[in-house]
């Protein structure tokens, strides 16, 4: 029925118009009667649920609402989505904090590998850093093409799916999902490591501290993208200020001939090394330094989060991100090699901490400023995972490759399911790896480079297919990008395979298979449910056979019987009795009731209730073609804890009948305070 069609008489309606006569002739007026305080507004069959309808009733409900409001804030209207979008200044801390923060540990990760070959090998840190920055430049250039080609976001998954097919898309998506989880785990671990550099007591509690910090980030993100950005913007800019300040002062001292004296780490690597310097070791160091490239795909994935013009804002953010990372990373690497910093074997003190100690001195306010801002940005880098994972999961859910809950938008317009699932997975991984950055990093980069390679090569095919103006330049850039990222992928896969990258390689096909299985389920369900054709009508059923299981003759049972008779003229009551004596006693009481409803008494000498009832229903079903409806009477106590005092027979029967085909189960609750008489009216 459309809003314009008149409703049949006696149809319940939210609005009733009653004409009233006034005291004088012609003083008629219309009283518009509607349920007050319902929170539903509108008229003529078109209604809108206002925010008031979301308010829970009862003490527990109100308490829950108040807690949620305190933690994640007031509910946002769907129209506020545009206001939740971000500009370049907010987008940088939200989407680029992962990449920018990598500058805090990328140098150290490369040095840690080179130090295995002895102190002299550390001289190769700078060439490796230059190689990493070169790859980053290629990635930034290529990703800017992704942003322009796919302004609706989706990133590598969408590019790979559209140009290489579904399997490649799912491989890219799986790699990115893994990478986002690892981003959160690694960034948190690195943030805790930075804190424990100046509060060593925290080192032994690093897993617990990390889990608490993940929970804080999750709550921050549940408050919505914009608020998360505002929350995280100041620390990100403070980190940049601290690092550029440190680099400026360090370079000033070096260029004025006042080279700072090197500081010794608490647990240095042996100066002579434990392995020979080989090509493989250098490649491993490059692979570890490439950790700094992670997070650069987040901007392309999150284009729709930007204010208009989305593409332009995203590209500006991407370029700024690359420039900031490159300058800090190269500056830190230069200072580390020039001063002669060595990495700490047991990860108690970071290279950044030692550089700052050497340049400005330990215990100075600037030292603490650098350490605190580094710790905070490393934690906020995890926020890139919180931005990317839920968004990608929602895209996959809309394409029916992930459960639909991932596409549901929460009260603050954030993808709550994705945020919660990401937090749990990251916390589990953090705990499993003991909160060690060094143990987690080998797993990290492979996913992102796989996604990069797939998206770059996908774009190459796209340019070749479309041949738009300027396609040759775009194709050349993306071909070069695909070759470079593909090479890094092979290097990372080989050098880190035994260190843990194999886990990611095993996990990716498993996740792809899982996503496929989910999609197949949704396809099957859709085939079964979808209405074909436009001339479908609502089918007309015969009145069903109604079975009312009755444990004892009480008010709840009478209410269920009354309801059953209102549904169909064919009602059958059934009582399961544990003994002959109690069966006879029940029948006597039933006869006293004087009802015309037929009764079957089922004796169950093995004292089981549910199974004999199910068999009874099966038998009735076989003997009659009409659909079966089971009406259950259920007593509802006043308080939740009183549930424990009742046998929950109705609940067990409902559970048992849930998957029985062609069976309708109707629950007739009888509340403790219920005085309702269903026979009324």
């Amino acid at each position, binding site marked *: 029925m459309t809003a314009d069609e008149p409703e049949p008489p006696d149809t319940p309606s939210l609005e009733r118009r009653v004409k009233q006569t006034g005291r004088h002739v012609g003083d008629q007026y219309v*009283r518009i009667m509607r349920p007050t305080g319902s929170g539903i507004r509108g008229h003529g069959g078109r209604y809108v649920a206002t925010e008031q309808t979301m308010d829970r009733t009862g003490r527990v409900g109100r308490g829950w609402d108040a807690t949620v409001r305190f933690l994640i804030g007031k509910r946002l209207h769907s129209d506020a989505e545009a206001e939740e979008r971000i500009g370049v200044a907010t987008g940088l801390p939200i989407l680029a904090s992962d990449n920018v923060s990598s500058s805090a540990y990328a140098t150290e990760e490369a040095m840690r590998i080179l130090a295995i070959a002895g102190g002299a090998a550390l001289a190769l840190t700078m060439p490796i850093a230059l190689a990493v920055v070169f790859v980053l430049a290629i990635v930034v250039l290529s990703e800017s093409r992704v942003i322009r080609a796919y302004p609706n976001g989706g990133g590598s998954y969408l590019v790979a799916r559209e140009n290489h097919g579904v399997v490649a898309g799912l491989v890219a998506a799986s790699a990115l999902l893994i990478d986002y989880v690892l981003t959160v785990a690694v960034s948190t671990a690195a943030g805790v490591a930075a804190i424990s550099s100046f509060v060593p007591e925290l080192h032994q509690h690093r897993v617990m501290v990390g889990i608490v910090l993940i929970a804080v980030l999750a709550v921050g993100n549940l408050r919505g993208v914009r608020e998360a950005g505002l929350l995280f913007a100041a620390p990100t800019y403070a980190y940049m200020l601290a690092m550029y300040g440190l680099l400026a002062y360090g370079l000033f001292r070096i260029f004025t001939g006042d080279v700072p004296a090197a500081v010794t780490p608490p647990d240095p690597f042996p100066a002579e090394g434990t392995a020979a310097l080989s090509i493989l070791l250098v490649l491993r160091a490059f692979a570890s330094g490439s950790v700094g490239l992670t997070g650069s795909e987040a901007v392309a994935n999150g284009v729709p989060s930007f204010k208009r013009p989305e593409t332009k804002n995203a590209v500006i953010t991407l370029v700024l991100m690359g420039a900031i990372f490159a300058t800090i990373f190269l500056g830190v690497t230069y200072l580390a090699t020039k001063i002669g910093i060595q990495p700490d074997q047991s990860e108690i003190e970071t290279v950044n901490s030692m550089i700052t100690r050497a340049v400005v001195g330990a215990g100075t306010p600037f030292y603490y400023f650098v350490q605190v801002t580094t710790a905070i940005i490393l934690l906020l880098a995890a926020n890139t995972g919180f931005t990317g994972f839920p968004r990608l999961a929602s895209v996959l859910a809309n394409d029916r490759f992930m459960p639909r809950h991932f596409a549901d938008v929460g009260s603050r317009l954030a993808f709550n399911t994705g945020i919660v699932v990401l937090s749990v997975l990251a916390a589990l991984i953090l705990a499993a790896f003991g909160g060690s950055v060094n143990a987690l990093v080998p797993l990290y980069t492979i996913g992102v480079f796989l996604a990069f390679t797939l998206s770059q090569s996908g774009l190459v095919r796209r340019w070749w297919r479309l041949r738009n103006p300027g396609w040759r330049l775009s194709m050349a850039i993306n071909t070069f990008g695909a070759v470079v990222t593909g090479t890094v992928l092979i290097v990372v896969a080989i050098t880190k395979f035994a260190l843990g990258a194999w886990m990611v390689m095993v996990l990716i096909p498993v996740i792809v298979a899982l996503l496929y299985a989910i999609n197949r389920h949704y396809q099957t369900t859709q085939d079964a449910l979808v209405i074909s054709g436009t001339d479908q009508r609502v089918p007309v059923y015969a009145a069903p056979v109604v079975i009312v299981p009755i444990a004892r003759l009480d008010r709840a049972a009478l209410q269920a019987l009354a309801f059953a008779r209102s549904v169909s003229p064919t009602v059958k009551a059934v009582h399961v009795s544990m003994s002959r004596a109690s069966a006879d006693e029940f029948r006597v009481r039933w006869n006293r009731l004087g009802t015309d409803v037929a009764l079957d008494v089922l004796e169950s000498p093995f004292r089981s209730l549910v199974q004999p009832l199910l068999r009874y229903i099966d038998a009735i079903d076989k003997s009659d073609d009409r659909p079966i409806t089971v009406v259950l009477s259920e007593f509802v106590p006043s308080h939740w804890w009183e549930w424990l005092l009742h046998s929950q027979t109705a609940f067990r029967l409902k559970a048992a009948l849930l998957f029985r085909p062609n069976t309708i189960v109707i629950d007739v609750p009888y509340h403790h305070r219920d005085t309702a008489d269903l026979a009324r009216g």
Partner: protein
Amino acid sequence: MQPKRILVALAGTSADPDVIRLVAWVAKPAKAEVVGIHVIEVRWNLPLDAVMEPELDRGEELLESAKKVADQAGLQLETELLQARDAAAAIVDTAVERKCDLIVVAMPYRKRLGRVYVGRTVQNVYVNAPCAVLAYRQEENK
């Protein structure tokens, strides 16, 4: 005077919150029942029960706001939306039907050539109400 039932007419002006607070101040000590009404005036070229969506939306909105102000003031406010040809007649008739002993209205006014002009609704309520009428003079916007 201790009113037992108060009718407050809400027109959706900026004075409404003050009127509600004034009613709360009067009603709470007397434990009086309060009903807030908003009357949508229907033009003569339309049927009396015509569905006028923008006016209905506005009416619902202002009654909801009034309820919120009343809740804050600790006042239980019942609300009702009416449609009539003449708002004053509907206000008076509702007050009679509900046996109200006080009608409270906001009184917006204009000054022209040194004289004060009050709207016809307030004047008609004053003249025709069978009970006491309390008019809240709305301050002029400075």
